[in-house]
């Protein structure tokens, strides 16, 4: 979909939809929001809806950052310590490597 051809109200509506649905544990929608609307929000010359689009993009970026931090921390801890957790580690694993602890 080419954003150039859309009227500004529809652009705003799209940005808002992606922002709201991203709360349903869908951080990738926020990533798409940030990347897709970045040019609209910050590069293009100002128009009436741009302020709101800018705020949605900023909030999506914030949410994305939180998700990335949480996931990176959990994945690092899990990969490093799963072997030491013994039974609990096996219980929460989906695939367990063969031959190594």
């Amino acid at each position: 979909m080419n954003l150039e051809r859309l009227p500004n109200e529809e652009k705003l509506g799209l940005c808002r939809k992606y922002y709201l649905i991203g709360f349903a544990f869908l951080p990738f929608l926020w990533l798409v929001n940030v990347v897709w609307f970045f040019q609209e929000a910050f590069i293009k010359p100002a128009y009436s809806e741009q302020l709101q689009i800018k705020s949605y993009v900023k909030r999506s970026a914030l949410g994305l950052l939180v998700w990335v931090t949480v996931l990176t921390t959990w994945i690092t801890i899990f990969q490093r310590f799963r072997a030491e957790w013994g039974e609990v580690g096996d219980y929460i694993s989906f695939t367990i490597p063969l031959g190594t602890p």
Partner: protein
Amino acid sequence: ASMCKIYVHLNYTFPCVRLLNATHQIGCQSSLSGNVGVLHELESEENLDWVLTSGPNPPYMVILESRLFTRSIMMKLKEGSGRVAGVVVVAPNTNPPEGFSPHTACPNDNSGVYTENYDPTLAHCNATVWNPLGNGLAYEEFDFPIFSVKDDNDTRVIRQCYQDHNRRVNGSNPQFPLCAMQLRSSMSAVTNTATCKRRNDINFSLTPDRVCDELGDFNIWASSRPMNTTTKGHKEFESVVIAAARMDSRSFFFDIAPGAESTASGIVTLLAAAHALRRATQEAPPNRTILYTFFQGETFDYIGSSRMVYDMENNQFPLDLDNIHSVLEVSQVGLHSDSKLWLHSDPVSRKNSSVKEELVNGLKSASAGLNVSVDEPDVSQPLPPSSFQRFLLARPIPGVVIGNYRSSFTNRYYESMYDNAEYLNVSYPENMTSEEQLEHFPETVKTLTEVATLVARALYVQAGGNETQLANITADPQIVNQMLYSFLVRANNSWLQQLVPTDFTNHLGKLLFFLSDRPTNFYVGVIQYFSEPTTLVQYMLANMTGSVVNVTQEDCQKQREDKDDDQSKHLYTYMWVQGAAPPNSTEREGFCVRSTVHRSIAVSPAFELHEYTTSNYSTWTESVWKPITGRIFLVASHDLEMLTLGVGITVLLTSLVLTYVISSKADILFSSGREPTSATY
């Protein structure tokens, strides 16, 4: 014309595999696709320096002659793990004269009766070290593969490759390409039995993989007098003398376990004694029943005997521990120079027992007319590792263990791949059929026959038999010869072929067993696979103690004597065996053997109770593995590989750049002087 091959596969290799118990993992492991290393033939222990520090092309695959396969060298290799990709041991054609035992110095230390509670001065081999040559290698953990190859064509190829490419010439380092070997023995199980059993049971993954299997098989037992085997638990008025022997052995490598002195000598002696007693126990039966028992899995913390004791305690066996009068166990009895046997007993329970004195006296008097003499060792000395210890753990039963050793094993190759026919001086002339070979009687047969006669007479007296019958009880040297040949040389011989059924397929047509053409492998193995000695002992014991009955094949296989008989199956086992072909025909004439031979399951009680961390029972399991292979090939230097990769990436990037440049300037490069076609009038 010779075929150029990249890989040369190694055919007859024996890997070392991973075994796990409640607390440890032992054995070897390779990476998933196999460990690759540059070959290096180790010349001496000092040469280890090349492998561990100074060699320029790590990791190395070390080739060891058997004289260098020692604990100190292996421990040093184990430390230098980053630079050692694996070890290949070349098995010699003759046994090393100095002896070699990869087992521990104190076998089955924590699973017998001698613990701190029982008597601290006797625990942990404080009184005497049974296996002084034991270096414990088989119970160490290695993170690289260790394979054994026979000294034959394969090894010649390996050595030739090493000579051509890897040898140092005049002090300069060998140049690439170098000869390398890849060994793959990737084990799936890790840590210990509890972990691997837990991972076996995980059932929410897409493809549940088995990671380990428990060791176990069956015990074989037979009674000299039939008794009802369907009713379990204590039997009134039944008093038995257990005549025990173990049926298994092991070595450092998987599926090699010739166990000649440690196992076969005991089995053959007890079977021959059972045969010698057949007539006496039928014509002049003694007061007590003799129970001939062969335990499987004893090497791994007494799997078979602990299970039998457990079954007896839980009324799962046709007898009870209170039915046992005494135990006589035949341990290693292959005699060597001084023809002397030692009668071991337990110093703690001895204090309260006159039965044991009777047993010892019975043995001493039975040896009177024979070429074998018996004696007792020091009064304070404990029992050697033996199945009898598990019975003692449960009850203070009197008993004696017979062995050819006084205070430490005379067997220089205990639980190693060298405990074979050569060690027992059992050899037959080459290039003859099995029938012709069996006409020859090695010296060992005569001595084992004497021991079997001794054991038979002592058992008869211990069971309350009349001493006047003793002169009639003698073992048959021909039977001893045939059995020894079957276990130590090849089971597929004309004598044994007569004693087994025609085919060992189950009802689904799957082949369960076959007589092999090589020395018996006494390794107990996992419960899913039949262990070779169990089946051999089962059919031999049936032949030794049972009798031929005139029953049709159909009735025989349905465990009855005729159509309306439904009582015999409680007392007897019927086996239809293929017999021999009469002189003027090729069809074998089968017959039915009725005996009291039964199998009882030999799986550790730890697996019945699902207690995988217990120290009371054996918890040994064997890892599941991916296909085990080995191959040799030439490798190029790492620098050459990097150069090739670099050139390839450069070509890729250059072509991308070139394509972009050309396509952006396409209208200039490919203008053909035509008029522009767009017309906007």
